[in-house]
């Protein structure tokens, strides 16, 4: 992408100030902050597989949207929410563990996605932009939805963060304190699902789980408190996303992959730092 521009005599500054690039950068910053924020609950509740599961569930919704010709986001968000609720329902009402439920929904959603894609002709290129992420495809709609999600996320900090954190530490104690953990879990999974769906254009289905988990995991290695872990995770997620985005343009490497590689490098550094602690 960049080489093509440079061959035409366009400078790096020109590339970085292109509207698509600014949209991608803003979306990246907003969504990475959310990923870092919700990621701490995912990591501390040992739900890393849920990120992968919801990412792949979104594939089914996106393919459905592409097939029936509706903006995939509007189909994928409710589709992924339903899958999230389905996973929680199976966990609560059967003898199966959450990871089994995730495994089932994961594959069923991918199978449905493949079916819908095979039915829709000529839209496979769109599907690829979700699979691997594509900066060019970030639209203003994505930006508005990201902004709404960030405002919602900020609104959860004064009350819900503390409730979720308490339930993460000890859901029974949280219950005794009057927190209705089941409905709050549902809300957390719903917000996580929406964040994952909107993030797909930046990082892609295949890497979205890492995008949610790695900054929080790095923060976990360095933080002494859960509040500190949350702040550090958001900071790590935003920094690695901006760095990864910039590097992906400079090195002409797919963005999602570059971001996750930068995050992996940060994780390695956190491991080294934590060992010396």
């Amino acid at each position, binding site marked *: 992408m960049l080489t093509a521009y440079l061959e035409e005599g366009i400078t790096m500054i020109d590339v970085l100030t292109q509207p698509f690039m600014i949209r991608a950068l803003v979306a990246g910053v907003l969504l990475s902050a959310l990923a870092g924020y919700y990621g701490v609950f995912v990591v501390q509740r040992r739900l890393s597989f849920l990120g992968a599961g919801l990412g792949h569930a979104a594939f089914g919704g996106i393919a459905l949207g592409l097939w029936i010709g509706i903006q995939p986001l509007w189909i994928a968000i409710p589709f992924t929410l339903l899958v999230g609720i389905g996973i929680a329902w199976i966990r609560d009402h059967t003898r199966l563990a959450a990871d089994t439920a995730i495994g089932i929904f994961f594959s069923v959603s991918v199978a449905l996605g493949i079916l819908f894609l095979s039915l829709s002709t000529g839209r496979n290129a769109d599907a690829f932009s979700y699979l691997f992420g594509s900066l060019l495809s970030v639209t203003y709609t994505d930006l508005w939805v990201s902004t709404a999600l960030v405002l919602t996320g900020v609104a959860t900090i004064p009350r819900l963060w503390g409730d979720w954190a308490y339930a993460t530490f000890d859901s029974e*104690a949280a219950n005794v304190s009057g927190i209705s953990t089941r409905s709050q879990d549902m809300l957390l999974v719903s917000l996580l699902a929406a964040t994952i769906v909107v993030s797909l254009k930046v990082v892609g289905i295949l890497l979205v789980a890492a995008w949610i988990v790695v900054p929080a995991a790095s923060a976990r290695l360095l933080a002494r408190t859960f*509040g500190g872990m949350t702040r550090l995770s958001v900071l790590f997620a935003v920094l690695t996303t901006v760095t990864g985005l910039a590097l992906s343009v400079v090195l002409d490497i797919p963005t999602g992959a570059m971001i996750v590689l930068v995050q992996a490098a940060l994780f390695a550094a956190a491991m080294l730092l934590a060992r010396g602690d």
Partner: protein
Amino acid sequence: MIQANSLTVQAAHRDILKDISFKLPTGAFLAIIGPNGGGKSTLVRALLGLQKHKGTVQFGTAESGAGKGSNRRVPIGYVPQIKTLDRSFPALTEELVATALKKRWPWTIDSACRTIVRDALRSVSAEHLIGEPIRNLSGGELQRVYLARAMISTPPYLFLDEPAAGVDVAGTADMLECVEQFRREHGATIVMVTHDWDVAMHHASHALVLNKEVISFGPAHDAVSEDAIRKAFGHVGHAHGVFGGGHHHD
């Protein structure tokens, strides 16, 4: 006063607790004793409204209905079994104690809150642990921290589930002294699950011997009889010295 009326807990059509009724006067210290799998922890969870059950529980004049998560408004301090704690959670002692004040996990701790937390920790001789990550605490230290947390808002009821598990004898004695003192100073009603009959005899005013149903209930010295223990456990082989009999298997 705690009154349980026909508490029954079932799982997979099997009775875990059957028709439990008792009335504990205010200011009493109840020890719940019985064999493993006899439903001691389940009873505590049912009393606290954490376990789905039939029957009713009454705290003072406030009644909580059957079912799970009933709208109990009575403040109760609860010291859970520490073996269930997630030690991988990044938390400091002061945060864990502050959850009892804030009713949610604290984002940060202000100085007013820290003062109250420090006082609560001092009352269980654990003030020095205030800034310690919880993963560094020993079982006994953690138990005292939990006790400070349970007592911080001076609740009229204090529940302890197996406080002696994983704690050495001296640590247990210190802790029970703190519980006794709390009961004397505030007139609190204490409910404690224990497998240690000595503890039941020395600290408790009342005892409930439990094996899925009430074997005996009453003042500790009456309720913990050789007959009741034999019925609950099937034998008295573990009652070292309690009845002056030593080992005596059926």
